[in-house]
């Protein structure tokens, strides 16, 4: 899970600004759109702008020489001062037993919403009715404003608010550019903000993408941004899937992400950790109301790997079900049609075939004739996690597992394997999964010393 290391607070302001304009054949659409955005810019710059801090009674008027609803929050307050007004939201308590050696789980997120005051108006002219009688397109679109700011707790709150207002203005300008660029006649696409944690010095950055346009069609936009931010040209950094995950945002699909981060590393001298890079979901027996107890372990491992490629931005396709996996194998001719709907096992070769067919991902196959040999594969495995960083599917004996990393000492050759076990049949209870070792560090004795094993090592491919 990525988070910013330097700053201790992230301010996030979200809200809707209604974009309304009239377009017809005679007027210049671009001009009208720009004028409308100008109007919204004025609105955001006006003294009627109000920030409300979620889970608190705090209201701030940032453009009205910093007024706030709390007497103790003034223009000399710091960002940290605001934290004591916020009631913690305990709806999702992160139960994790083995976090003793971890530092605090990340920056505090202060969520704020955009409001506008409708009282205290500038004038007092009674309302008029303005009517235009002409065939027109009445265009209405809610703009999903979403600005973020990393601050440290001793920075000035008033200053932070000013910067946020400035970010809102800049976001409007970025949105205007996207709306105009993607316009087709009167049809306008909603500009959506996405936040990305980019390497320093860039840090947290926001990019606007047009809604409804898939990542595959935004290649050119990403190329320009990769150049601008000096990002590597071979791996996805700015796909929607790469968007920054806020510490307080739960995953809506219910799968656990990266359970391994809650483990203490094994205690062996001079060992270095070589772990999976990025985010994967834990797929295991009995999920999605599929009873695959006893036969589905390799399928689940494949799902975990698939989820990795999806969440790193390599693919937009949904994680396939057992039957979709089977269909893929029938489609490539690897299996007879009667394989579909059966409860037959698959192995590393099938995993490799499906990854290739559905995602275009190639994989290396590693073979060991005896499980005991795995203890000597430290160098290959550590190299894999360093360069590719993808989860490994291992099948042998009668079992399949996922290897998420190794702890390996180059000097002594001692090795431990970080295993994610797809044979777990319970619910998404992190505590149990960690405590009972369904995700855990295992020694070389974990493998059947006499059975042969095949490992599928998926390879990244060059894309942005």
């Amino acid at each position, binding site marked *: 899970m990525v988070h910013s290391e330097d700053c201790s607070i992230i301010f996030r302001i979200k809200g809707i600004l209604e974009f309304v304009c009239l377009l017809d054949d005679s007027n210049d659409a671009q001009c009208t759109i720009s004028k409308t955005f100008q109007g919204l810019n004025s609105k955001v710059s006006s003294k009627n702008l109000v920030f409300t801090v979620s889970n608190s009674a705090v209201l701030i008027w940032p453009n009205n020489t910093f007024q706030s609803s709390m007497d103790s929050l003034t223009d000399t307050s710091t960002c940290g001062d605001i934290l004591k007004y916020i009631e913690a939201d305990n709806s999702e308590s992160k139960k994790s037993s083995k976090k003793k050696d971890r530092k605090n789980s990340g920056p505090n997120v202060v969520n704020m919403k955009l409001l506008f005051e409708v009282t*205290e108006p500038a004038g007092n002219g009674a*309302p008029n009715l303005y009517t235009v009688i002409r065939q027109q*397109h009445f265009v209405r*679109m809610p703009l999903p404003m979403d600005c973020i700011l990393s601050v440290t707790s001793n920075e000035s709150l008033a200053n932070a608010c000013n910067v946020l207002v400035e970010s809102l203005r800049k976001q409007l300008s970025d949105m205007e550019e996207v709306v105009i660029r993607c316009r087709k006649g009167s049809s306008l696409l*909603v500009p959506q903000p996405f936040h990305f944690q980019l390497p320093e010095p860039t840090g947290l950055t926001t990019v606007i993408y047009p809604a409804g346009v898939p990542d595959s069609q935004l290649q050119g936009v990403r190329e320009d941004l990769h150049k601008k931010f000096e990002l590597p040209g071979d791996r996805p950094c700015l796909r929607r899937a790469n968007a920054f995950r806020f510490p307080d945002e739960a995953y809506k699909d219910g799968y656990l992400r990266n359970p391994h981060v809650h483990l203490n590393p094994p205690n062996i001298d001079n060992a270095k950790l070589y772990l999976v890079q990025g985010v994967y979901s834990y797929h295991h027996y009995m999920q999605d109301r599929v009873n695959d107890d006893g036969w589905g372990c390799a399928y689940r491992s494949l799902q975990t790997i698939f989820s990795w490629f999806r969440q790193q931005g390599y693919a937009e396709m949904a994680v396939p079900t057992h039957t979709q996996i089977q269909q893929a194998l029938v489609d490539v001719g690897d299996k007879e049609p009667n394989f579909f709907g059966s409860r037959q096992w698959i192995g590393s070769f099938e995993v490799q075939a499906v990854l290739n067919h559905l995602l275009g991902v190639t994989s290396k196959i590693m073979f060991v004739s005896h499980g005991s040999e795995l203890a000597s594969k430290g160098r290959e495995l550590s190299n894999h996690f360093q360069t590719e960083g993808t989860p490994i599917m291992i099948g042998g004996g009668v079992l399949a597992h996922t290897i998420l990393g190794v702890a390996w000492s180059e000097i002594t050759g001692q090795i431990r394997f970080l295993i994610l076990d797809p044979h777990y049949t319970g619910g998404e209870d992190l505590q149990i999964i960690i405590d009972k070792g369904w995700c855990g560090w295992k020694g070389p004795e974990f493998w059947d010393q006499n059975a042969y094993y095949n490992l599928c090592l998926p390879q990244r491919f060059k894309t942005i």
Partner: protein
Amino acid sequence: MGRSYIVEEAVEKYLCELQTPPGSCVTGLLVGQSSPQRDFVVLAVQTPHRESEGPAKASTRGSPLDDIDVEWVTEHARQVSRMLPGGLSILGLFLVTPPELSKDAQNTLKRLIFAVDKYITKGRLWELTEEDVTDRVTLHICSNTKKAVCRTFDVKDPKSSAKPADWKYQTSVLSSWPMLTCSVELDVHIPVTESASNSTEKCIQDGLRKWAKQIEAGHCLINGKRAFDDSEFISGQKKNPKITQRQTLPARILVSEEQPEVDERSSAQIQVCNVSARVQGVVHCRAYIHNNKPKARHAAQAIKRDIINTVSCRVEMFLEDLLISEGRQKGPCSGRQALPRRVFVPAPCSGLSLCDYMFPDESTGDVAERLKEMLDWDTPETDIDITLETNHLFCSEGIDSHGDSSKHFTSEVGTPKIQKAPQYYAGVAVAAAVALLATATSLLYFNE
């Protein structure tokens, strides 16, 4: 356990002094505020005589109860309810009958109260909540004995039967009620696509309803504190009967433009329309809150409802007026037209202020006349406060805008100048102004 009504002493005086021609009936409205525990009645207003009725009609028909013009009673109720600031509403009706008609009076009152409630809630842009009291009071007074019988009906339930209620007179019921005020700026864009099922009025109402929902969902600050819960909203106010000064509390409303019921779309919503309307300006709002441990959120609700009512009310009146003067074929004409503005009037006896709406071509004299007709008040014209909403330049004649109309949505509103010269156009860009001026001048001489 029935409801109890605390009634202003002035109402007792008014009811006693009512002149009822022998053998006939008098109807009227009871105005006040409901709260879950008890209700307050602060004003009584007799239904004015309808001038069109000839004097000879009454005697030949059946009972005088049948002569009661239900339509007129409900129309009067609607006019009066438009004059009420927030917190106050029509709580019920009274009926004065001669003794021989007393036993039929209940039925008549029931009929009337349901008809009145139905009529005055048409066109309302906010919904009743579960906590709103739906009991309405009916007061029957015998013209001989002056004895009053008080019952309530639940207007939510057509089969409701009369329930007994307490009617108690008290002095200075209203005098220490705090008053919330605020000025609210609005700018609502409404597309109008006329079709068989959707009249212009309905389109405009739907457009305003969206805005009304935003106001209802908005945060309300009273005295700098959020008024959203059951806490008492006036802390520290002593219940000293000697306090005669009414507290005026400013309210602030903050709205969000979120619309949770709208699904997430990837593209803008486009509506083809042949007319687009925009209501823009500032309305002045007031609400009275009873002082019997009022809750903060009821106070917030009262002022929000007043905001919504005053806007929907004046738009309704404008469209009605248009209908009467121009007929069905014409909707609002192109250009900028002033909506009737709100003026405030102090009640003769209590410290209450009611309001009225003044059309651009009206004067305070017209308002005074209307007050006399509707409420039977004699108000000196100088008492009518017209300064809270300023008189904007208006074009009551139809002005078609030819040519470049992209200027219609200029965001500035001209500086208020209290001038009635129709040729003065504030806030319109120079080029368009010249064109408009030329067109307007010609149209003034050629009535459409």
